[in-house]
Protein backbone atom coordinates (compact mmCIF):
# COMPACT_ATOMS: atom_id res chain seq x y z
CA UNK A 1 0.00 0.00 0.00
CA UNK A 2 1.25 3.46 -0.84
CA UNK A 3 -0.75 5.11 1.92
CA UNK A 4 -1.92 3.36 5.08
CA UNK A 5 -3.88 5.29 7.64
CA UNK A 6 -4.78 3.48 10.84
CA UNK A 7 -6.96 4.56 13.74
CA UNK A 8 -6.58 8.32 13.44
CA UNK A 9 -8.01 10.36 16.29
CA UNK A 10 -8.00 14.11 15.83
CA UNK A 11 -9.30 16.72 18.22
CA UNK A 12 -9.74 20.45 17.88
CA UNK A 13 -9.90 21.38 21.52
CA UNK A 14 -12.97 19.51 22.71
CA UNK A 15 -14.25 18.76 19.20
CA UNK A 16 -13.53 15.16 18.26
CA UNK A 17 -13.16 15.60 14.49
CA UNK A 18 -11.79 12.18 13.47
CA UNK A 19 -12.70 9.08 15.45
CA UNK A 20 -10.43 6.17 14.65
CA UNK A 21 -10.31 6.67 10.89
CA UNK A 22 -8.51 4.02 8.85
CA UNK A 23 -8.03 4.21 5.09
CA UNK A 24 -5.70 2.94 2.38
CA UNK A 25 -4.63 3.92 -1.08
CA UNK A 26 -2.69 1.62 -3.36
CA UNK A 27 -0.14 2.87 -5.86
CA UNK A 28 -1.85 4.09 -9.04
CA UNK A 29 -5.35 4.31 -7.57
CA UNK A 30 -7.81 7.14 -7.44
CA UNK A 31 -9.49 6.88 -4.07
CA UNK A 32 -12.30 9.20 -3.18
CA UNK A 33 -13.53 10.37 0.17
CA UNK A 34 -17.07 11.69 0.31
CA UNK A 35 -19.11 13.00 3.17
CA UNK A 36 -21.35 15.81 4.31
CA UNK A 37 -20.16 19.21 5.48
CA UNK A 38 -18.24 18.92 8.70
CA UNK A 39 -17.68 15.17 8.34
CA UNK A 40 -13.92 15.62 8.76
CA UNK A 41 -12.65 15.29 5.18
CA UNK A 42 -10.47 18.38 5.27
CA UNK A 43 -9.25 17.42 8.72
CA UNK A 44 -8.11 14.06 7.37
CA UNK A 45 -6.18 15.63 4.48
CA UNK A 46 -4.60 18.15 6.83
CA UNK A 47 -3.52 15.38 9.13
CA UNK A 48 -1.97 13.48 6.22
CA UNK A 49 0.00 16.61 5.26
CA UNK A 50 1.20 17.12 8.83
CA UNK A 51 -0.75 20.34 9.36
CA UNK A 52 -2.79 18.83 12.17
CA UNK A 53 -1.34 16.50 14.82
CA UNK A 54 -3.47 13.44 15.59
CA UNK A 55 -3.86 12.38 19.20
CA UNK A 56 -3.65 8.73 18.19
CA UNK A 57 -3.19 6.64 15.08
CA UNK A 58 -0.56 6.38 12.38
CA UNK A 59 -0.03 7.51 8.82
CA UNK A 60 2.34 5.44 6.73
CA UNK A 61 3.53 6.49 3.30
CA UNK A 62 5.49 3.95 1.28
CA UNK A 63 5.88 1.96 4.46
CA UNK A 64 7.36 4.83 6.40
CA UNK A 65 5.71 6.36 9.46
CA UNK A 66 5.11 10.02 8.65
CA UNK A 67 2.60 10.73 11.42
CA UNK A 68 4.70 13.29 13.27
CA UNK A 69 6.77 14.74 10.49
CA UNK A 70 6.49 18.48 9.82
CA UNK A 71 4.52 19.43 6.69
CA UNK A 72 7.51 20.53 4.63
CA UNK A 73 9.22 17.17 5.08
CA UNK A 74 6.09 15.30 4.08
CA UNK A 75 6.05 17.27 0.83
CA UNK A 76 9.67 16.28 0.34
CA UNK A 77 8.74 12.62 0.64
CA UNK A 78 6.23 12.85 -2.21
CA UNK A 79 2.84 13.83 -0.76
CA UNK A 80 1.39 17.12 -1.92
CA UNK A 81 -1.95 18.78 -1.54
CA UNK A 82 -4.21 21.22 -3.36
CA UNK A 83 -5.96 22.46 -0.23
CA UNK A 84 -9.50 23.54 0.47
CA UNK A 85 -9.94 27.16 -0.56
CA UNK A 86 -7.06 26.78 -3.03
CA UNK A 87 -4.70 28.98 -1.02
CA UNK A 88 -3.12 30.62 -4.04
CA UNK A 89 -0.39 33.15 -3.24
CA UNK A 90 -2.48 36.11 -4.25
CA UNK A 91 0.38 38.60 -4.68
CA UNK A 92 2.56 36.33 -6.75
CA UNK A 93 2.36 35.51 -10.43
CA UNK A 94 1.19 32.17 -11.80
CA UNK A 95 4.82 31.35 -12.58
CA UNK A 96 5.99 32.18 -9.08
CA UNK A 97 3.19 30.10 -7.57
CA UNK A 98 4.34 27.16 -9.66
CA UNK A 99 7.96 27.78 -8.77
CA UNK A 100 7.05 27.68 -5.08
CA UNK A 101 5.36 24.35 -5.66
CA UNK A 102 8.78 23.03 -6.63
CA UNK A 103 10.43 24.64 -3.59
CA UNK A 104 12.20 21.55 -2.35
CA UNK A 105 13.57 20.55 -5.71
CA UNK A 106 16.91 21.60 -7.16
CA UNK A 107 16.84 19.87 -10.54
CA UNK A 108 16.23 22.84 -12.82
CA UNK A 109 15.67 20.83 -16.00
CA UNK A 110 13.21 18.55 -14.22
CA UNK A 111 11.32 21.52 -12.82
CA UNK A 112 11.13 23.14 -16.25
CA UNK A 113 9.83 19.89 -17.72
CA UNK A 114 7.16 19.59 -15.04
CA UNK A 115 6.12 23.16 -15.57
CA UNK A 116 5.73 22.47 -19.26
CA UNK A 117 3.62 19.45 -18.33
CA UNK A 118 1.40 21.57 -16.07
CA UNK A 119 0.94 24.07 -18.90
CA UNK A 120 0.02 21.18 -21.16
CA UNK A 121 -2.61 20.00 -18.68
CA UNK A 122 -3.89 23.54 -18.13
CA UNK A 123 -3.20 25.65 -21.24
CA UNK A 124 -5.12 28.49 -19.59
CA UNK A 125 -2.34 28.82 -17.01
CA UNK A 126 0.29 29.24 -19.69
CA UNK A 127 -1.64 32.11 -21.27
CA UNK A 128 -1.77 33.73 -17.87
CA UNK A 129 1.66 32.86 -16.61
CA UNK A 130 2.54 36.42 -15.64
CA UNK A 131 -0.83 37.28 -14.18
CA UNK A 132 -1.04 37.80 -10.41
CA UNK A 133 -2.62 34.83 -8.65
CA UNK A 134 -5.21 36.89 -6.81
CA UNK A 135 -6.71 38.15 -10.07
CA UNK A 136 -7.34 34.70 -11.56
CA UNK A 137 -10.91 33.43 -11.80
CA UNK A 138 -12.02 30.72 -9.39
CA UNK A 139 -11.57 27.98 -11.97
CA UNK A 140 -8.14 29.23 -12.95
CA UNK A 141 -7.14 29.35 -9.31
CA UNK A 142 -8.21 25.75 -8.93
CA UNK A 143 -6.10 24.80 -11.95
CA UNK A 144 -3.19 26.67 -10.43
CA UNK A 145 -3.66 24.95 -7.07
CA UNK A 146 -3.56 21.53 -8.74
CA UNK A 147 -0.69 22.49 -11.05
CA UNK A 148 1.26 23.88 -8.12
CA UNK A 149 0.75 20.69 -6.14
CA UNK A 150 2.10 18.72 -9.11
CA UNK A 151 5.28 20.78 -9.20
CA UNK A 152 6.76 18.87 -6.28
CA UNK A 153 6.44 15.73 -8.44
CA UNK A 154 4.31 13.92 -5.86
CA UNK A 155 3.57 10.22 -5.80
CA UNK A 156 0.45 10.93 -3.79
CA UNK A 157 -1.75 13.92 -4.62
CA UNK A 158 -4.36 15.07 -2.12
CA UNK A 159 -7.18 17.11 -3.64
CA UNK A 160 -9.70 18.87 -1.39
CA UNK A 161 -12.91 19.61 -3.30
CA UNK A 162 -11.37 20.59 -6.63
CA UNK A 163 -14.80 21.07 -8.21
CA UNK A 164 -16.10 23.50 -5.60
CA UNK A 165 -17.66 26.57 -7.16
CA UNK A 166 -16.91 25.62 -10.76
CA UNK A 167 -19.32 25.59 -13.69
CA UNK A 168 -20.41 22.07 -14.80
CA UNK A 169 -18.33 22.19 -17.96
CA UNK A 170 -15.22 23.10 -16.04
CA UNK A 171 -15.95 20.43 -13.44
CA UNK A 172 -15.91 17.80 -16.17
CA UNK A 173 -12.67 19.24 -17.51
CA UNK A 174 -11.01 19.17 -14.07
CA UNK A 175 -12.07 15.58 -13.50
CA UNK A 176 -10.67 14.60 -16.89
CA UNK A 177 -7.39 16.24 -15.93
CA UNK A 178 -7.35 14.39 -12.61
CA UNK A 179 -7.63 11.12 -14.55
CA UNK A 180 -4.80 12.21 -16.85
CA UNK A 181 -2.62 12.98 -13.85
CA UNK A 182 -3.47 9.57 -12.45
CA UNK A 183 -2.61 7.85 -15.72
CA UNK A 184 0.80 9.48 -15.53
CA UNK A 185 1.38 7.45 -12.36
CA UNK A 186 0.24 9.72 -9.54
CA UNK A 187 -1.98 8.20 -6.86
CA UNK A 188 -4.87 10.51 -6.03
CA UNK A 189 -6.89 10.89 -2.84
CA UNK A 190 -9.87 12.94 -3.87
CA UNK A 191 -12.17 14.66 -1.39
CA UNK A 192 -15.41 15.68 -3.02
CA UNK A 193 -18.93 16.95 -2.44
CA UNK A 194 -19.71 16.05 -6.01
CA UNK A 195 -20.09 12.38 -5.13
CA UNK A 196 -21.36 11.26 -8.49
CA UNK A 197 -18.40 12.62 -10.42
CA UNK A 198 -15.93 11.50 -7.80
CA UNK A 199 -17.25 7.94 -7.68
CA UNK A 200 -17.25 7.68 -11.45
CA UNK A 201 -13.52 8.46 -11.76
CA UNK A 202 -12.37 6.64 -8.62
CA UNK A 203 -11.61 2.98 -8.19
CA UNK A 204 -12.57 2.90 -4.53
CA UNK A 205 -14.41 5.19 -2.19
CA UNK A 206 -14.88 5.94 1.49
CA UNK A 207 -17.89 7.59 3.05
CA UNK A 208 -17.07 9.66 6.08
CA UNK A 209 -19.77 10.56 8.57
CA UNK A 210 -19.12 12.78 11.59
CA UNK A 211 -15.56 11.63 11.92
CA UNK A 212 -15.96 7.92 11.25
CA UNK A 213 -15.71 5.81 8.10
CA UNK A 214 -19.28 4.72 7.47
CA UNK A 215 -18.76 2.81 4.23
CA UNK A 216 -15.84 1.59 2.22
CA UNK A 217 -16.19 -0.14 -1.13
CA UNK A 218 -15.43 -0.18 -4.83
CA UNK A 219 -16.59 3.07 -6.33
CA UNK A 220 -18.88 1.28 -8.79
CA UNK A 221 -20.66 -0.47 -5.93
CA UNK A 222 -20.94 2.69 -3.87
CA UNK A 223 -22.66 4.32 -6.83
CA UNK A 224 -25.33 1.62 -6.60
CA UNK A 225 -25.55 1.67 -2.80
CA UNK A 226 -29.00 2.76 -1.61
CA UNK A 227 -27.67 4.61 1.39
CA UNK A 228 -25.18 6.52 -0.70
CA UNK A 229 -27.80 7.27 -3.34
CA UNK A 230 -30.10 8.63 -0.65
CA UNK A 231 -27.56 10.76 1.15
CA UNK A 232 -25.05 11.88 -1.47
CA UNK A 233 -26.40 11.31 -4.95
CA UNK A 234 -29.65 13.19 -4.58
CA UNK A 235 -31.89 10.12 -4.27
Amino acid at each position, binding site marked *: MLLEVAGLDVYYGAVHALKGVSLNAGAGEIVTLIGANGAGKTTLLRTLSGLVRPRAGTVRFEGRDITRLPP*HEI*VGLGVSQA*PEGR*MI*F*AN*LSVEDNLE*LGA*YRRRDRPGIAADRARVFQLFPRLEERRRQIGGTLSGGEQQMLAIGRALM*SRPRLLLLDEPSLGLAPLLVREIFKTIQEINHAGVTVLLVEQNAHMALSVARRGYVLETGTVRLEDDAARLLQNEEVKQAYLGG
Partner: protein
Amino acid sequence: MSEFLQQLVNGVTWGSVYALIALGYTMVYGILRLINFAHGDIYMLGAFFGFYAPGLIVAAGARAGEWLEGAHRVLHGVPVLGPGLGRLAAALSAAGSMADALQALLVLVIAMVGCGLLGIVIERGAYKPVRRSSRLAALITAIGVSLLLENGGVLVFGPDPKFFPQIIPSSNIALGGGVTISNQQVIILTVSILLMFALRFIVTRTRVGKAMQAVSHSHMAASLMGISVDRIITFTFVLGSMLAAAAGVLVALQNPKIEPYMGVMPGLKAFVAAVLGGIGNIPGAVLGGLVMGVAEVLVVGYVSPTYRDAIAFVLLIIILLVRPAGILGKAQAEKV
Protein backbone atom coordinates in the same frame (compact mmCIF):
# COMPACT_ATOMS: atom_id res chain seq x y z
CA MET B 1 14.84 78.23 -0.98
CA SER B 2 18.37 76.97 -0.41
CA GLU B 3 17.52 76.60 3.26
CA PHE B 4 14.57 74.43 2.31
CA LEU B 5 16.69 72.31 -0.01
CA GLN B 6 19.25 71.91 2.73
CA GLN B 7 16.54 70.69 5.09
CA LEU B 8 15.36 68.29 2.44
CA VAL B 9 18.84 66.81 2.06
CA ASN B 10 19.10 66.35 5.82
CA GLY B 11 15.58 64.98 6.03
CA VAL B 12 16.11 62.40 3.32
CA THR B 13 19.33 61.28 4.98
CA TRP B 14 17.57 60.77 8.31
CA GLY B 15 14.67 59.26 6.50
CA SER B 16 16.84 56.60 4.92
CA VAL B 17 17.98 55.58 8.40
CA TYR B 18 14.37 55.33 9.59
CA ALA B 19 13.61 53.36 6.46
CA LEU B 20 16.33 50.80 7.22
CA ILE B 21 14.90 50.24 10.70
CA ALA B 22 11.29 50.32 9.51
CA LEU B 23 12.04 47.52 7.04
CA GLY B 24 12.74 45.15 9.92
CA TYR B 25 9.47 46.03 11.65
CA THR B 26 7.49 45.60 8.49
CA MET B 27 9.07 42.30 7.42
CA VAL B 28 8.60 40.69 10.82
CA TYR B 29 5.04 41.98 11.00
CA GLY B 30 4.36 40.70 7.50
CA ILE B 31 5.44 37.22 8.48
CA LEU B 32 4.35 36.89 12.11
CA ARG B 33 1.83 39.71 12.64
CA LEU B 34 4.14 40.61 15.50
CA ILE B 35 5.37 44.07 16.36
CA ASN B 36 8.92 43.41 17.39
CA PHE B 37 9.35 46.11 20.00
CA ALA B 38 12.93 45.07 20.58
CA HIS B 39 13.87 46.12 17.05
CA GLY B 40 15.05 49.61 18.05
CA ASP B 41 17.41 47.98 20.53
CA ILE B 42 18.97 45.94 17.75
CA TYR B 43 19.79 49.27 16.12
CA MET B 44 21.48 50.30 19.39
CA LEU B 45 23.40 47.04 19.53
CA GLY B 46 24.48 47.54 15.93
CA ALA B 47 26.14 50.78 17.01
CA PHE B 48 27.80 49.07 19.98
CA PHE B 49 28.99 46.11 17.97
CA GLY B 50 30.41 48.65 15.56
CA PHE B 51 32.05 50.43 18.49
CA TYR B 52 33.90 47.30 19.58
CA ALA B 53 34.59 46.08 16.06
CA PRO B 54 37.80 48.05 15.38
CA GLY B 55 39.38 46.56 18.50
CA LEU B 56 38.33 43.16 17.28
CA ILE B 57 39.75 43.80 13.84
CA VAL B 58 43.07 45.03 15.25
CA ALA B 59 43.31 42.11 17.65
CA ALA B 60 42.44 39.59 14.98
CA GLY B 61 44.82 41.27 12.55
CA ALA B 62 47.64 41.26 15.10
CA ARG B 63 46.99 37.64 16.01
CA ALA B 64 46.97 36.57 12.37
CA GLY B 65 50.04 38.71 11.81
CA GLU B 66 51.93 37.02 14.65
CA TRP B 67 50.94 33.64 13.42
CA LEU B 68 52.09 34.44 9.90
CA GLU B 69 55.32 35.90 11.27
CA GLY B 70 55.97 32.59 12.94
CA ALA B 71 55.14 30.73 9.77
CA HIS B 72 57.40 33.15 7.91
CA ARG B 73 60.33 32.43 10.21
CA VAL B 74 59.94 28.73 9.69
CA LEU B 75 59.45 29.02 5.98
CA HIS B 76 61.75 31.95 5.16
CA GLY B 77 64.08 29.69 3.29
CA VAL B 78 61.34 28.77 0.87
CA PRO B 79 61.38 31.08 -2.16
CA VAL B 80 58.25 33.13 -3.02
CA LEU B 81 56.13 31.69 -0.21
CA GLY B 82 58.51 32.89 2.53
CA PRO B 83 58.75 36.57 1.55
CA GLY B 84 55.08 36.61 0.55
CA LEU B 85 54.07 35.47 4.02
CA GLY B 86 56.33 38.10 5.51
CA ARG B 87 54.66 40.89 3.60
CA LEU B 88 51.19 39.59 4.43
CA ALA B 89 52.13 39.39 8.10
CA ALA B 90 53.35 42.98 8.10
CA ALA B 91 50.17 44.13 6.38
CA LEU B 92 47.93 42.35 8.86
CA SER B 93 49.84 43.63 11.86
CA ALA B 94 49.17 47.12 10.55
CA ALA B 95 45.47 46.39 10.18
CA GLY B 96 44.68 49.16 12.65
CA SER B 97 45.87 51.74 10.19
CA MET B 98 44.21 50.29 7.13
CA ALA B 99 42.33 52.56 4.79
CA ASP B 100 39.44 54.37 6.51
CA ALA B 101 36.82 53.24 4.04
CA LEU B 102 37.85 49.62 4.25
CA GLN B 103 37.84 49.76 8.02
CA ALA B 104 34.42 51.39 8.08
CA LEU B 105 33.16 48.69 5.77
CA LEU B 106 34.54 45.97 8.01
CA VAL B 107 32.97 47.60 11.05
CA LEU B 108 29.64 47.69 9.22
CA VAL B 109 29.88 44.05 8.22
CA ILE B 110 30.87 42.91 11.72
CA ALA B 111 27.97 44.82 13.30
CA MET B 112 25.54 43.41 10.75
CA VAL B 113 26.73 39.85 11.22
CA GLY B 114 26.70 40.24 15.01
CA CYS B 115 23.14 41.56 15.04
CA GLY B 116 22.07 38.97 12.49
CA LEU B 117 23.24 36.22 14.84
CA LEU B 118 21.56 37.95 17.76
CA GLY B 119 18.38 38.04 15.68
CA ILE B 120 18.51 34.23 15.49
CA VAL B 121 18.97 33.95 19.25
CA ILE B 122 16.09 36.33 19.99
CA GLU B 123 13.70 34.69 17.56
CA ARG B 124 14.48 31.14 18.62
CA GLY B 125 14.85 31.90 22.30
CA ALA B 126 12.07 34.41 22.93
CA TYR B 127 9.51 34.55 20.12
CA LYS B 128 9.33 30.99 18.87
CA PRO B 129 8.23 29.54 22.22
CA VAL B 130 5.24 31.92 22.34
CA ARG B 131 4.32 31.70 18.67
CA ARG B 132 1.23 29.60 19.32
CA SER B 133 0.13 31.70 22.27
CA SER B 134 -2.02 34.81 22.11
CA ARG B 135 -0.84 37.94 20.43
CA LEU B 136 -0.80 39.66 23.77
CA ALA B 137 1.74 37.10 25.02
CA ALA B 138 3.90 37.79 21.99
CA LEU B 139 3.64 41.53 22.50
CA ILE B 140 4.60 41.28 26.15
CA THR B 141 7.51 39.05 25.18
CA ALA B 142 8.67 41.68 22.70
CA ILE B 143 8.56 44.39 25.36
CA GLY B 144 10.43 42.05 27.70
CA VAL B 145 13.16 41.43 25.12
CA SER B 146 13.44 45.17 24.58
CA LEU B 147 13.90 45.85 28.31
CA LEU B 148 16.36 43.01 28.54
CA LEU B 149 18.49 44.39 25.73
CA GLU B 150 18.42 47.93 27.10
CA ASN B 151 19.24 46.99 30.67
CA GLY B 152 21.63 44.31 29.54
CA GLY B 153 23.28 47.07 27.50
CA VAL B 154 23.66 49.23 30.62
CA LEU B 155 25.14 46.28 32.44
CA VAL B 156 27.60 45.31 29.74
CA PHE B 157 28.51 48.63 28.14
CA GLY B 158 27.95 50.85 31.17
CA PRO B 159 25.37 53.60 31.54
CA ASP B 160 27.62 56.40 30.29
CA PRO B 161 27.69 57.30 26.63
CA LYS B 162 30.53 55.96 24.56
CA PHE B 163 32.04 57.76 21.62
CA PHE B 164 32.05 55.95 18.36
CA PRO B 165 35.48 56.14 16.70
CA GLN B 166 35.51 58.74 13.96
CA ILE B 167 36.70 56.34 11.32
CA ILE B 168 35.88 58.71 8.52
CA PRO B 169 36.79 62.35 9.20
CA SER B 170 33.92 64.57 8.32
CA SER B 171 34.07 67.00 5.42
CA ASN B 172 31.47 68.95 3.52
CA ILE B 173 30.69 68.87 -0.14
CA ALA B 174 29.00 71.89 -1.69
CA LEU B 175 26.10 70.97 -3.92
CA GLY B 176 25.67 74.51 -5.24
CA GLY B 177 23.00 77.04 -4.35
CA GLY B 178 24.24 77.16 -0.77
CA VAL B 179 23.30 73.54 -0.14
CA THR B 180 25.95 71.28 1.33
CA ILE B 181 26.06 67.61 2.12
CA SER B 182 28.60 65.99 4.39
CA ASN B 183 30.61 63.02 3.22
CA GLN B 184 28.99 61.07 6.06
CA GLN B 185 25.55 61.88 4.74
CA VAL B 186 26.69 60.65 1.36
CA ILE B 187 27.81 57.41 2.99
CA ILE B 188 24.52 57.02 4.86
CA LEU B 189 22.52 57.56 1.69
CA THR B 190 24.69 55.35 -0.49
CA VAL B 191 24.84 52.44 1.92
CA SER B 192 21.14 52.54 2.72
CA ILE B 193 20.15 52.71 -0.93
CA LEU B 194 22.46 49.78 -1.72
CA LEU B 195 21.02 47.77 1.16
CA MET B 196 17.46 48.52 0.10
CA PHE B 197 18.18 47.36 -3.44
CA ALA B 198 19.85 44.24 -2.07
CA LEU B 199 16.77 43.56 0.03
CA ARG B 200 14.49 44.15 -2.89
CA PHE B 201 16.51 41.72 -4.95
CA ILE B 202 16.41 39.08 -2.22
CA VAL B 203 12.68 39.39 -1.65
CA THR B 204 11.51 39.51 -5.25
CA ARG B 205 14.07 37.49 -7.15
CA THR B 206 15.48 34.74 -4.96
CA ARG B 207 14.04 31.43 -3.84
CA VAL B 208 14.22 32.33 -0.17
CA GLY B 209 12.65 35.73 -0.88
CA LYS B 210 9.70 34.16 -2.65
CA ALA B 211 9.39 31.80 0.29
CA MET B 212 9.24 34.87 2.56
CA GLN B 213 6.38 36.23 0.48
CA ALA B 214 4.64 32.86 0.63
CA VAL B 215 4.98 32.63 4.41
CA SER B 216 3.75 36.19 4.82
CA HIS B 217 0.67 35.25 2.78
CA SER B 218 -0.14 32.06 4.70
CA HIS B 219 1.93 29.79 6.91
CA MET B 220 -0.25 26.84 6.02
CA ALA B 221 -0.03 27.32 2.27
CA ALA B 222 3.71 27.91 2.50
CA SER B 223 4.31 24.72 4.45
CA LEU B 224 2.27 22.79 1.86
CA MET B 225 4.84 23.94 -0.70
CA GLY B 226 7.57 22.25 1.31
CA ILE B 227 8.80 25.50 2.83
CA SER B 228 10.13 25.24 6.36
CA VAL B 229 8.18 28.13 7.87
CA ASP B 230 10.39 28.20 10.98
CA ARG B 231 13.48 28.66 8.90
CA ILE B 232 11.97 31.48 6.86
CA ILE B 233 10.87 33.26 10.02
CA THR B 234 14.39 33.06 11.41
CA PHE B 235 15.81 34.28 8.12
CA THR B 236 13.46 37.26 8.23
CA PHE B 237 14.68 38.20 11.70
CA VAL B 238 18.26 37.95 10.48
CA LEU B 239 17.60 40.26 7.54
CA GLY B 240 15.74 42.81 9.65
CA SER B 241 18.39 42.77 12.36
CA MET B 242 21.17 43.24 9.83
CA LEU B 243 19.46 46.29 8.38
CA ALA B 244 18.92 47.78 11.85
CA ALA B 245 22.59 47.13 12.68
CA ALA B 246 23.62 48.93 9.52
CA ALA B 247 21.44 51.88 10.52
CA GLY B 248 23.10 51.93 13.95
CA VAL B 249 26.60 52.06 12.51
CA LEU B 250 25.69 54.64 9.87
CA VAL B 251 24.18 56.97 12.43
CA ALA B 252 27.10 56.49 14.82
CA LEU B 253 29.54 57.48 12.08
CA GLN B 254 27.83 60.84 12.04
CA ASN B 255 26.63 61.23 15.65
CA PRO B 256 29.29 59.40 17.65
CA LYS B 257 27.61 59.52 21.04
CA ILE B 258 26.12 56.08 21.69
CA GLU B 259 24.35 54.75 24.77
CA PRO B 260 22.11 51.78 25.64
CA TYR B 261 18.83 53.71 25.33
CA MET B 262 19.66 55.31 21.99
CA GLY B 263 17.40 52.84 20.15
CA VAL B 264 14.18 53.77 21.89
CA MET B 265 13.22 56.92 19.99
CA PRO B 266 14.48 55.93 16.54
CA GLY B 267 12.82 52.55 17.07
CA LEU B 268 9.48 54.13 17.85
CA LYS B 269 9.76 56.54 14.95
CA ALA B 270 10.72 53.80 12.55
CA PHE B 271 7.73 51.81 13.78
CA VAL B 272 5.50 54.80 13.04
CA ALA B 273 7.20 55.04 9.64
CA ALA B 274 6.30 51.41 8.95
CA VAL B 275 2.67 52.04 9.92
CA LEU B 276 2.69 55.21 7.85
CA GLY B 277 3.78 53.33 4.75
CA GLY B 278 1.49 50.40 5.46
CA ILE B 279 2.83 47.81 7.87
CA GLY B 280 3.81 44.58 6.17
CA ASN B 281 4.54 46.48 2.96
CA ILE B 282 8.22 46.74 2.06
CA PRO B 283 8.15 49.74 -0.29
CA GLY B 284 5.80 51.32 2.24
CA ALA B 285 8.46 51.12 4.94
CA VAL B 286 10.93 52.97 2.74
CA LEU B 287 8.39 55.63 1.83
CA GLY B 288 7.25 55.97 5.44
CA GLY B 289 10.84 56.34 6.60
CA LEU B 290 11.52 59.10 4.11
CA VAL B 291 8.31 60.94 4.99
CA MET B 292 9.19 60.66 8.66
CA GLY B 293 12.72 61.97 8.19
CA VAL B 294 11.66 64.91 6.07
CA ALA B 295 8.72 65.79 8.32
CA GLU B 296 10.96 65.76 11.36
CA VAL B 297 13.62 67.98 9.86
CA LEU B 298 11.03 70.43 8.51
CA VAL B 299 9.35 70.69 11.89
CA VAL B 300 12.67 71.36 13.57
CA GLY B 301 13.61 73.92 10.94
CA TYR B 302 10.35 75.79 10.54
CA VAL B 303 8.29 75.19 13.66
CA SER B 304 10.30 74.41 16.74
CA PRO B 305 12.92 71.85 17.73
CA THR B 306 10.69 71.10 20.73
CA TYR B 307 8.31 69.22 18.43
CA ARG B 308 11.02 67.08 16.92
CA ASP B 309 9.76 63.90 18.55
CA ALA B 310 6.10 64.93 18.69
CA ILE B 311 5.75 65.01 14.91
CA ALA B 312 6.10 61.23 14.73
CA PHE B 313 3.03 60.78 16.88
CA VAL B 314 1.11 63.48 15.09
CA LEU B 315 1.78 61.61 11.84
CA LEU B 316 0.72 58.35 13.48
CA ILE B 317 -2.57 59.84 14.64
CA ILE B 318 -3.25 61.40 11.25
CA ILE B 319 -2.59 58.21 9.32
CA LEU B 320 -4.67 56.12 11.71
CA LEU B 321 -7.56 58.54 11.27
CA VAL B 322 -7.29 59.08 7.53
CA ARG B 323 -5.90 55.86 6.14
CA PRO B 324 -5.34 53.20 8.79
CA ALA B 325 -3.90 50.73 6.28
CA GLY B 326 -1.06 53.17 5.56
CA ILE B 327 -0.05 55.03 2.43
CA LEU B 328 0.74 51.94 0.36
CA GLY B 329 -1.15 49.38 2.42
CA LYS B 330 -4.17 47.75 0.92
CA ALA B 331 -7.34 48.64 2.74
CA GLN B 332 -8.55 45.14 3.49
CA ALA B 333 -9.75 43.14 6.41
CA GLU B 334 -6.82 41.54 8.13
CA LYS B 335 -6.65 37.81 7.61
CA VAL B 336 -5.12 35.80 10.39
